[in-house]
């Protein structure tokens, strides 16, 4: 894997969304691929959701379960630990990426593994696990088709669920011909999948250690759950001798019964399926059946600091369905790489700045027109626009605390002046008159075609109506006066 910014804590802020988006928007093939993929999946999702009469009740149930779990997370995590240990598994707590990676490398080394096979997992992407294992001389082999594609291409994921969404099948065919041991290949999806399958089958049968993430872990029973479509995950969690599962601490759910809600919400929201093809559930170890050694790594990596924030913590409710990415008009155009984070799209825009700190990812909360489509489709009702606005507040306050150079930015000066103006009717009305005068050099035929400085972004492709000669309030006063005069004139 290439170096993914945002996978490890660095002092340097991420590149701005604006600059990365500009690069992405210039790639017309990318825009075409993304539009085709996202519009197809969101139409399918709409149909899958519409056939559920109790969808809104399910969403509310999902929200409440997550909210309650977060309020008692300490309790459920300890309950989970006890249950996993009781079932013969081992539980490890990792404060950050470094600790988690070291733990996983150590377990793999104990078993003299030179290779590990992997189930698709965002959490391990967040850890930069593949790179960390490579430093120990261990190759991590991605077994999810799309993850394999981007691993072979040396790229990073651009979508939570379909990491290679930015590639079309012609591009994938070319990649496989270059990197896999195949002589002839068409760009038919079935043929492409078979090429990957042949490559992976050998690995499934020979690798002793597997690494997975977790969609859910049940506190009361210690059961870990992974949902997937391809069956590669099922191979990984059943064939090797040793299984290591890494999960963010927010993934715990209290009871087995909660699956009733989440296994309805997740597949319909993510792949638009009534039920996903593979739902793997395992509880500790069982003699003679499946892995004989099971490790569960519970990862913090910034999550408790998100949990401490009463408004921002709802970002932890996310079940990684990616419906918000597919519906987002910004994501649909820029793609995932513009977010410079493992978690792209609307959920990434509220999660990444909280996990890494707003000083590192301060442009992400602004990567949204606040259109609200993400909130409408979120299966656990995360109010993403609300959290975006809240985080913008944190970005601004952090800038205002900063050095003079940061505080003296034109936006801050303009908005401060406007706030003062709007605080008084006299100042406001004076400003209206001033605007009418100030615009004169820019106005032509009642329209403005070129604005200066910070505002020039507006007139790249759009004109602006000039401030008209009479404001509404001036008209209102004039009308009131005329009526008054008419009344006086009539006997």
């Amino acid at each position: 894997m290439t170096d993914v910014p945002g996978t490890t804590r660095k002092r340097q802020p991420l590149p701005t969304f604006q600059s990365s988006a500009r690069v992405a928007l210039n790639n017309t093939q990318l825009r075409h691929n993304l539009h085709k993929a996202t519009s197809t999946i969101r139409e399918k999702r709409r149909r899958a959701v519409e056939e559920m009469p109790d969808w809104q009740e399910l969403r509310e149930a999902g929200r409440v379960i997550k909210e309650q779990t977060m309020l008692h997370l300490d309790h459920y995590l300890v309950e989970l630990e006890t249950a996993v240990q009781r079932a013969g598994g081992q539980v490890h707590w990792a404060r950050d990426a470094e600790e988690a990676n070291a733990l996983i490398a150590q377990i793999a080394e104990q078993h003299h593994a030179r290779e590990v096979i992997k189930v698709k997992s965002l959490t391990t992407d967040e850890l930069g696990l593949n790179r960390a294992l490579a430093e120990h001389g261990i190759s991590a082999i991605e077994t999810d088709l799309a993850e394999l594609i981007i691993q072979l291409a040396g790229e990073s994921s651009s979508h939570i669920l379909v990491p290679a969404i930015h590639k079309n099948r012609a591009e994938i065919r070319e990649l496989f011909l270059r990197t896999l041991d195949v002589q002839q290949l068409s760009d038919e999806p079935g043929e492409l999948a078979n090429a990957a399958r042949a490559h992976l089958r050998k690995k499934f049968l020979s690798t002793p250690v597997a690494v997975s993430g977790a969609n859910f872990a049940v506190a009361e029973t210690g059961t870990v759950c992974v949902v997937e479509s391809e069956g590669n995950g099922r191979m990984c969690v059943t064939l090797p001798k040793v299984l290591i599962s890494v999960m963010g601490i927010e993934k715990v759910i209290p009871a087995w019964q909660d699956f009733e809600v989440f296994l309805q919400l997740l597949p319909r929201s993510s792949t638009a399926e009534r039920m996903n093809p593979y739902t793997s559930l395992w509880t500790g170890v069982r003699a003679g059946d499946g892995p004989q050694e099971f490790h569960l790594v519970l990862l913090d990596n910034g999550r408790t600091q998100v949990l401490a924030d009463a408004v921002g913590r709802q970002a932890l409710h996310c079940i990684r369905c990616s419906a918000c990415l597919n519906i987002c008009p910004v994501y649909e155009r820029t793609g995932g790489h513009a977010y410079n984070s493992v978690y792209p799209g609307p959920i990434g825009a509220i999660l990444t700045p909280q996990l890494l700190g707003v000083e590192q990812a301060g442009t992400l909360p602004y990567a949204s027109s606040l259109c609200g489509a993400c909130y409408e489709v979120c299966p656990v009702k995360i109010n993403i626009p609300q959290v975006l606005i809240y985080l913008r507040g944190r970005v601004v306050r952090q800038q205002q605390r900063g050095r003079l150079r940061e505080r003296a930015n034109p936006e801050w000066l303009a908005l401060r002046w406007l706030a003062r103006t709007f605080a008084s009717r006299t100042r406001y009305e004076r400003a209206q008159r001033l605007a009418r005068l100030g615009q004169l050099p820019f106005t032509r035929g009642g329209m403005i075609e070129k604005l200066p400085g910070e505002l020039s972004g507006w007139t790249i492709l759009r004109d602006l109506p000039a401030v008209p000669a009479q404001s509404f309030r001036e008209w209102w006063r004039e009308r009131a006066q005329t009526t008054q005069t008419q009344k006086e004139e009539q006997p």
Partner: protein
Amino acid sequence: MRVALFITCFNDTLFPQAGRATVQLLERLGHTVEFPEEQTCCGQMHFNTGYQREALPLIRRFVQVFGQAEVVVAPSASCVGMVREVYPLAAQWFGDQELLAEVEALAPRVYELSEFLVHRLGLEDVGAYYPHRVTYHPTCHSLRFLHVGDAPLRLLRAVRGLDLVELPAAEECCGFGGTFAVKNADTSLDMLSDKVRHVLSTGAEVCVAADNSCLMQIGGALHRQRAGVRTPHLAEILASTEEEAFV
């Protein structure tokens, strides 16, 4: 009914004709319109850009100006969304219980024009006449924050002479998003290009919406292209009659 008009600073300054149309329409329907002249700005731009401390005095000001009104009506879904959805949040974030109580008492009486007409007054036919081919852009805040539903469409369908054509991908954002359009100008323009393409595909001569902010974005691009499609506010169409065309 005594209606307090919340004109919004944006309409007051840039699009006064939407305000004049709202007054004309409401008076034609037999209501008394008042205009509290102390009103300025609801604080949305400040709040949504992250200048929340700076927005707080504007929120307090709004509540003071409109607190006693029977109903408040605005020709802007976006600014009404600010009052109804964001004001309670702001009061909570600043831990101001007194403000929260005042906001919660006021918010249910604040309406966007089309929902006031359809949902509150139960009207669809307001006696308008507008013999043009029109397409309607449902703005994000009217659709997803205020849930006005098809209220604007019901009003438009009842306008005599009006030929309503459906806008493809209508529910997709036009890319304005306030300061987003300047901060992320490239992405905003990309969204706008698609919206404009859809508007032009309808062959409509008029694209209407419940928000002049979105119309400034869409209309700005249409004007730059000299596309020959105008973008009046919904109120202006509803104010037009057989006796007098407003736009």
